[in-house]
């Protein structure tokens, strides 16, 4: 069994999970133009953009010899829930004989979930499985922690590119870990490394904080969203996302209420605008906007894959929020047609609006 998986954010966590359990892992290459071309070519035209890119990723992994694809399902009426099934069919029609292991929320279908776990577990003892899952979970938590530091401090680096370079090196260190102790050690070193990077501080009142919300794949995968976090950092703005993989695990995979608290709060904040879960992350996106606003962020960028129905709904809610609270939100549509020049112009103007607004407030005070 040669396992592969979708590429979203850093792939090393998934790679680690399967390799520690003794599987042969084919880590897919970072999504590139080739991945997108593959995906767009073999997916139905009307499918949403993440389905296309992920299909492209699978095709590249299959070329590298993978024969088993492990992925998560989705819930609600969002099409993401059918990605696995749709992609399975497409690949079958293309003549690939590939096994799909699709993890849905355990509470929905515990039997299938446990069957899937068994397929991954193979000969490992349960103790070993739990230890591995714990290690990988710690790794995800730790990497998200380090990445959050970078998203904040990179805005003020004196020499452009240092933090990004450090991040690439740090992820390679995480790639080598074997236990939770290793994670702690790597994290300590990583934070030391980041602290040694030269920072050109700006006065507190001139700092700009931007939240990024939207559909999880386009928010989490920089190669697809035009490296938006790096771009914002380069313009001197701090960034925080509404999605981190460790938080996704907390909410979707850990059956303990205390781990779900944050997500429930976010959902509650979205309640006023979208009462029910309409699929994807629409309600979370709206809730996260309110959350960022309450936490004093200066503005929010909303990313939606072209053709994503749930995020189209949140986009229309955004118009209302902007008017109601006079809060700057920029909605960007992401797909293979995205023109970088156009996006940069809008981000730059968006940050100008925010700066002027802050300036006006300061003068008024």
């Amino acid at each position, binding site marked *: 069994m040669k396992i592969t998986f979708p590429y979203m954010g850093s792939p090393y966590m998934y790679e680690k999970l399967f390799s520690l359990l003794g599987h042969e892992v084919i880590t897919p*290459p970072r999504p*590139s*133009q*080739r*991945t997108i071309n593959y995906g767009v070519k073999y997916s139905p035209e009307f499918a949403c953009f993440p389905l296309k890119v992920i299909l492209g990723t699978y095709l590249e992994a299959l070329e590298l010899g993978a024969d088993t694809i492990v992925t998560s399902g989705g819930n609600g009426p969002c099409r993401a829930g059918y990605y696995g099934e749709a992609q399975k069919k497409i690949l079958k029609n293309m003549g690939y004989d590939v096994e799909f292991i699709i993890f849905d929320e355990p509470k929905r279908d515990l039997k299938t979930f446990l069957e899937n776990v068994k397929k991954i577990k193979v000969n490992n003892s349960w103790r070993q499985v739990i230890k591995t899952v714990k290690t990988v979970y710690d790794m995800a938590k730790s990497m998200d922690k380090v990445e959050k530091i970078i998203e904040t401090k990179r805005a003020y680096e004196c020499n*452009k*590119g240092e933090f990004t370079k450090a991040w690439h090196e740090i992820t390679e260190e995480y790639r080598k870990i074997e236990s939770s102790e290793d994670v702690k050690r790597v994290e300590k070193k990583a934070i030391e490394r980041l602290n040694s990077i030269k920072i050109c501080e700006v006065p507190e009142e001139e700092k700009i904080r931007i939240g990024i919300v939207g559909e999880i794949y386009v928010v989490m995968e920089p190669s697809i969203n035009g*490296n938006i976090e790096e771009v914002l950092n380069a313009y001197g703005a701090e960034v925080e996302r509404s999605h981190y993989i460790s938080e996704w695990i907390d909410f979707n995979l850990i059956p303990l209420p205390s781990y779900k608290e944050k997500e429930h709060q976010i959902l509650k904040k979205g309640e006023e605008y979208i009462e029910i879960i309409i699929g994807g992350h629409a309600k979370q996106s709206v809730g996260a906007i309110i959350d960022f606003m309450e936490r004093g962020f200066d503005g929010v960028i909303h990313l939606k894959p*072209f053709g994503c129905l749930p995020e189209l709904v949140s986009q229309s809610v955004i*118009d209302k929020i*902007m*008017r109601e609270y*006079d809060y*700057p939100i920029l909605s960007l*549509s992401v797909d293979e*047609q995205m023109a970088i*020049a*156009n996006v*940069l*112009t*809008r981000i*730059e*103007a*968006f940050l*100008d*609006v925010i700066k*002027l*607004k802050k300036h*006006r407030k300061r003068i008024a005070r």
Partner: protein
Amino acid sequence: MEKIYIGVDVGSVSIKVVAIDENNEVLFNSYVRNVGQPIDTVKDELAKLHNELPDKEIGGVGVTGSGRQLLGYILGADVIKNEITAHATATLHFHPDASTIFEIGGQDSKLIIINDGTIADFAMNTVCAAGTGSFLDHQAQRLGIKIEEFGEIALTAKRDVRIAGRCTVFAESDMISKQQYGFSKAEILKGLSKALVRNYMNNLVRGRKLKPVFVFQGGVAANIAIKKAFEEEVGHEVIVPKYYDIMGAIGIAMLAKDEMKRTGNSTKFKGFEVSEEKFETTSFICKACPNECEIIQIKANGKVIAMTGDRCGRYSNSVI
């Protein structure tokens, strides 16, 4: 010696070069089509500027428009800024009470909302050019009229005809069928003007409440039929400023002036000699990863001065 500030707006369809003095008076302005050689065109226009204003000192240079980064680098610009901020800056100078700015250029259309004298919100067309100058250009060509006569002819229309304007290609087929029903050229043109404004309202305004004073600028503002269609749509007078087609360039010149005043620095402008330098742009496909980016290389007198187009920073960081 009196100081002047140069503003350059490199749009997809046209290139605008202006010079303003300390009081924002426009001393030089030019508007030429971008025929794909922006560097050469700007060089020529700068030479003209130098000819007309030989004894002025250059206080600062600003560059805006979709080609701003590259050209800003070549000229040694002091300010390189997006066209939304640039446009609003100029509009607020000429019409300080403006609340809503409609800006329609060759391939971009923008809506800028002003609140308390600063930009409060904006929108820009994203996936489609159906609400822009290129749309009108294309249709005028089809009907065999000059774009400059478009507005005048459209105003002579007696009846209204609705043209499907969602997509340039479908608008064309709709136009042909409406022509066959016997509608005149003028009526079709009027229909097109309304279709463009309808498109603009649907794609950019998206239900925002627009407040007067309304200002309409960009190359398309020359078209009085579009101005009229906007007035009918918003139910209010729409102002077309005197310098409607060079507002972006004026705005960026003003921003350059403010920046120089604020910092007290002297300009980084490489001088008019830049127009003597020979620029050459070449490109190659990078094979380092499957992204296969098209790397653009700019040479000045045979020496590489800038590289761009890579997604990873492999070349753009290696600027010499």
